[in-house]
């Protein structure tokens, strides 16, 4: 059995205040709290007030290729495109990509320094659209997830090849020295 950490999302309760984006981006800023920029948040509220669509989505894994998911789902009379519920940082959309570095963003459930009891977006969601849940699932305990630097490097390696990345790093180090 493995422990799974999830954020349950109730889209009927979200009121679009975006406090989740604010706290997430502030907590993960370097230095901590130095800015709160929704674009750097690992949770985004996809919202369209005119269509009454409010979907908080937290960042999952990075994917190299888009999945051709162009289908439309109608739920309660409202049309959602397939991407609305997808958590991937994906080349087909500008979600979960750091605007400065272009590197993918991934939710770590606020377990970096200092680790929090529950993700901060959940803590600050007074509308209770977000709830934190830990549950047991079949399967083996997952390996420790790569940290942010590793995720970034992995995506650079995928895009440019390990050799090119190593060369660039060596060059940067040389320049700095």
């Amino acid at each position: 059995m493995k422990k799974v950490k999830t954020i349950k999302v109730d889209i009927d309760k979200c009121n679009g205040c975006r406090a989740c984006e604010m706290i997430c981006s502030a907590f993960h800023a370097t230095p901590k709290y130095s800015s709160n920029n929704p674009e750097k948040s690992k949770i985004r509220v996809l919202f369209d007030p005119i269509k009454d669509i409010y979907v908080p989505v937290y960042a999952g894994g990075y994917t190299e290729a888009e999945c051709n998911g162009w289908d439309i789902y109608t739920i309660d009379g409202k049309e959602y495109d397939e991407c609305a519920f997808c958590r991937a940082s994906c080349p087909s959309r500008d979600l979960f990509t750091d605007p400065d570095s272009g590197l993918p963003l991934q939710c770590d459930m606020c377990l970096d320094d200092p680790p929090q009891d529950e993700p901060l977006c959940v803590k600050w969601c007074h509308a209770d659209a977000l709830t934190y849940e830990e549950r047991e699932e079949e399967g083996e305990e997952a390996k420790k997830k790569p940290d942010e630097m590793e995720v970034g490097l992995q995506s650079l390696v995928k895009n440019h090849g390990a050799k090119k990345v190593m060369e660039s790093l060596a060059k940067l180090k040389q320049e700095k020295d």
Partner: protein
Amino acid sequence: MRYAETGYNLEIDLSRGNIERVATDPRDSELYLGGQGTAAKILWDRVGPEVDPFSEDNLLIFSAGLLQGTPVPSANRTSVDTFSAQTGLYSHSLFGGFFGPEMKHAGYDKIILRGKSPKLVYLYIHNDVVEIRDASHLAGKGTMDTAEILKKELRDSKVQIAAIGLAGENRVYMAAIEHYNSSASRGVGHIMGDKGLKAIAVRGTKDINIAKPEELHKLCMDKYTEIYDKRVKYAGDVLTHENNETFHTNSFAWGNARERRKDFWKPEMTAEWGKVTEDHLLRHSACYNCPLDCHASITYPGRRTFFYKCYSKLTYAMAAYKDLHFNYDMIAVTQEYGLDGFSTPQVLAFACELYEAGILTDKDLPDFPKDTGERFFYLVEKIVRREGVGDALANGVYRAARQIGNGAEAYDHNTTKKFEQLPLKLGNLNYPFFLMYATGEKMCITQIEGAFPQDPIRDIEKRKAFVEGWEAAPERFKKWYLEWEPRTQPSIEASVNIADWNETGHYVDDSIGMCAYVSSFRGQFGGRIPYHMYNLPDFISLASGIDIDTDKLWEAATRSRTLIRAINNRRGLRRVDEKPPGDHWKYRDAAVEKQLLDEYYKFKGWTEDAIPTKEKLAELGLDFVAEDLINRGILTDNADTPVKEPSA
């Protein structure tokens, strides 16, 4: 490094198509903070009194408040400032939502629009990419339609849009600028239309620097919880979640601000009207980084989804003697046209009265329906297209009355400074409210009132207990509140101070972008407001690095307020214009009113003709204003200027 603000304004010349990113002077932020304050400085510097509101030289300024885009909860109100063709004076409005923070993340504290585009355009901003784009395909489109079309064609779900509808395009003076659940009313939409600007679409992804991030963050998170805990009782729009409409239906006047119906509301109506809302409510929605949800989105059969806020839930119903169904149906239509929900109903009710009185006839209004509700829909179509008599009505009650003539002037009884006021008909003159109506320059009482409670708590022990925990109030107000006998007026001295405190709170909020529902407006209904003059300096200092305390904050707000007075003085505003609506109170007292104004001007450091004195201007560091007013002969070099016959 600049903190809390970006340090740059976007200057757009719509006549020449020129776009510039201009660095701003940090000293101005210390003096005027931001938002309305710094916008007023720009209007003073760059738009002289000779500039016609419909000329290329008029500016339309969208300003993010100083605290917008910082973690400070509920600081999301964007200020829109310009000169209005309706009043000939400075015009100011605010809207919440998400626009201002996005603009700041794009790298701009303000968007300053000059000139006029020869054809309808929209402004597209994505960080450093700024383009004036063709909007011919958006001509005549509704405000929400426009937002939807732009989102789709820009392929960007996160872009924030503020747009005008047909009313703005046709320079209807009641035109608003709409942004989802929020709108900038009080006559700024007609200037946007005059400039040929259909919409602004903005998207920003840059960081905003904070002076003391960690300390500010702690303070903000505590405040976030406090605001949530204080909701309904001390913060937010108390009426959003309320189906009992006794307060508005009984206290405000129906029709063309004519009649109070104190027995209108029956207990069973709470459930009946509540069901109308429940059956059509999609959800309550919030503005950026605010734990409250003061806006309701409503869907109505055959209509586009709309949002109501505050008293606009009832304004059309009460003006037409109709019900909630009618009001909802009406907002659905008028929000798409981009019409202000406060002033428009009054223009419509005014036109209906003129017809009943035979001043407007079937010749002016061919096939005019019998039912008032149908008449409202009929008139709206005429007004937004400026068709026939709609052309005069589109200029608001004051101007329409004079254009129509034939006795129509007598039906203009609820305007001040040529602007529609809330429909109230009350008994005895209320001293502080008299001063606020007469001297306010934000044009709507909701933008002026707010800090001091409207009534004393009757039980003296309870009143004492309230005063003990009243953190928002300076000491002198606690004393006046304790001494206040129910059903009497505060003393002249207290009234003068109350009027000043009330409006100063708004000048603070509107410069930092704070929502009045958690600050300046809400004190009158209970006092224990989340933000006030004593705790805001911490937020401002930690966010912006500006060294400020309560006294300096009060002074900065007074500086902006005084500058705006001087701007309007330059356009002809004088004491003779400072009057409440004609029959707002049944019982008036000319002697007391004179005394109130005399004392208020003295307190404000204004001449008896309502112009800031040279000394007061010098004290606020506004010597350049004094110099200009003296050069123009508006102010004499030695204090008292004789009362002149004006006006604008």
